[in-house]
């Protein structure tokens, strides 16, 4: 293989893409269709609860277009970070969608399913052995936190996907995966340079976001050569430029020159970005620096309670002028009652129109808007307790007699009845760590299960 053509339909599976772009990509006879389905951006809830942040019908639409195009032409399809977070429930959710499509469309194919969940006992064993390191934070992990975390996923790299392709799978469905690896595994298997393949994957995982104007829901093509790769727009309205491509290296990264991943780091210090005809950009010079000790990045979220919120508006300038003191007094009164009634929890009162977005980082806190929005956010161990805390805080703020008050009928404008909305379980990221795994452990953990999908499929093949 002298060149490898890779079609990236969309930045997140389920975000959609124009069929015209996708068809233009298919016309270039891709060797691979790959898509990343995941992100930690939407926060800890989805990983902790096992739910997807993407819409089922959107995911099914995207997958249907991909599979009906790819399977009859024997083009491999690789999907990473299934269901958004890549834990077992997300993997199962995506697998069911694929099975439905196969049945509905009469497609029959072999599929490798790679789970990326880590057993709790293994994590605890590594923790005890001092082989778990916090990533970007100081949080000290303990046994209780590990046990309270329902799903612990490891970000798999290229190797498990490569082995799944070796096993003859036409579709690879992976749990949590390092985004570029779903694009890079196949070309690496064909002997292409690992650094270039991963860098190309790094850009393709965001589909057209690296083009200008950028879009997370439009398809693009990447063509990998021995010594370079090209980025190809598939819609006439956008192009890759030197700036748009280079600037993408910044996106969501802490260091644009060095991008760490499973097994090694991409070094972009020697990269060149050159515009060529047709709105394409050519990239050369990416280097891959293998880590002396490969690690696996693990993610997990645990439930910390239940939430109830209340949203209200304030337009009285006298109240807005003294809001800090009022809120402090409301907190104090509510805490007294809650303590007496032995209800445990926390409540935050945010003021939008003043510092609701940035909190203590807000430089313009001293000049709030002429009307402000108040968000009461109560979190407690049970939904009932959260309801009680929110209710008490809301009623105290509603009737609090602040100094200078002349509006004595009520301090808050509620947009809704009921005023208080239960928000359900609240999660927090409890694991965001690097785990030192031996190569044979990693290979065993992330082994693929090969199944046959489609009409009259018997499951395992």
């Amino acid at each position, binding site marked *: 293989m002298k060149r490898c053509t890779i079609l990236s339909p969309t930045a997140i599976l389920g975000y959609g893409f124009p069929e015209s772009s996708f068809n233009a990509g298919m016309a270039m006879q891709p060797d691979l269709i790959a898509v990343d389905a995941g992100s930690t951006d939407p*926060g800890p809830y989805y990983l902790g609860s096992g739910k997807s942040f993407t819409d089922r019908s959107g995911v099914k639409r995207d997958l249907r277009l991909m599979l009906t195009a790819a399977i009859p032409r024997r083009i491999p399809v690789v999907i990473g970070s299934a269901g958004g977070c890549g834990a077992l429930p997300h993997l199962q959710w995506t697998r069911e969608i694929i099975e439905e499509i196969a049945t509905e469309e009469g497609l029959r194919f072999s599929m490798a399913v790679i789970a990326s969940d880590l057993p709790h006992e293994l994590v605890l064993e590594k923790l005890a052995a001092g082989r778990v390191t916090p990533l970007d934070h100081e949080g000290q992990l303990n046994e209780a936190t590990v046990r309270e975390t329902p799903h612990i996923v490891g970000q798999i790299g290229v190797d498990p996907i490569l082995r799944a392709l070796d096993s003859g799978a036409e579709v690879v469905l992976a749990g949590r995966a390092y985004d570029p690896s779903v694009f890079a595994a196949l070309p690496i298997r064909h002997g292409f340079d690992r650094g270039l393949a991963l860098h190309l994957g790094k850009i393709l995982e965001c589909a057209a976001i690296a083009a200008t104007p950028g879009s997370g829901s439009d398809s693009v093509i990447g063509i990998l050569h021995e010594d370079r790769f090209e980025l190809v727009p598939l819609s006439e309205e956008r192009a890759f430029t*030197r700036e748009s491509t280079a600037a993408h290296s910044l996106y969501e990264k*802490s260091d*644009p020159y060095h991008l760490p991943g499973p097994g090694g780091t991409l070094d972009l210090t020697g990269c060149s970005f050159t515009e060529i005809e047709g709105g394409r950009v050519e990239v050369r010079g990416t280097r891959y620096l293998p880590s002396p000790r490969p690690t696996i990045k693990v993610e997990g979220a645990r439930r910390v309670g239940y939430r109830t919120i209340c949203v209200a508006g304030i337009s009285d300038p006298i109240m807005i002028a003294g809001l800090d003191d009022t809120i402090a007094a409301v907190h104090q009164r509510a805490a007294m009652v809650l303590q007496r009634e032995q209800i445990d929890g*926390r409540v935050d009162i945010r003021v939008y129109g003043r510092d609701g977005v*940035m909190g203590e980082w807000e430089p*313009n806190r001293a000049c709030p808007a002429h009307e402000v929005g108040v968000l009461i956010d109560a979190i407690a161990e049970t939904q009932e307790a959260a309801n009680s805390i929110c209710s008490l805080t809301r009623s105290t703020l509603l009737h609090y007699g602040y100094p200078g008050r002349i509006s004595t009928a009520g301090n808050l404008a509620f947009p809704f009845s009921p005023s208080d909305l239960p928000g359900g379980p609240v999660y927090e*990221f409890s694991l965001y760590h690097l785990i030192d795994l031996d190569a044979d452990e990693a290979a065993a953990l992330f082994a693929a299960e090969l199944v046959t999908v489609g009409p009259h499929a018997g499951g395992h093949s």
Partner: protein
Amino acid sequence: MNGKPEAGGAVRRKLIDMARVIRSKNSGPFTLTLDIIFSSADDYRALKESGQMSRGLIADAYGIDADRISDVIFFDPASAVKIVLPRMVASGGPGDRDVYGAQQHAPLLGLSFALPWNADDGTGPPARGGEPCPTS
């Protein structure tokens, strides 16, 4: 060049006039990154060489200590500056205000710089972020 002339031939330039992108975003659940992408490589180089885009300046704009800023990185291929700092609260956890970290960039919009900068020419230090309150 826009901006009003200052002593020593320097001109005060607003960041918002020089940048085509000023944004914030999570880099993982515990880290926030601020990206400034300049429209012109010349402006980018002038600012980079002036040394004004510093930890101290950003810290001042956000009202935090300079040692809270993990990194200020100049990325020549994109004529861009990246600033990295830890989030106050992990994304989506109790007390968080911005799960994606996508609206933490506003204090940068008020920055301005004396360019070309000459430390001996008597021009004042860079302006701090944020607009003053309108007088009521």
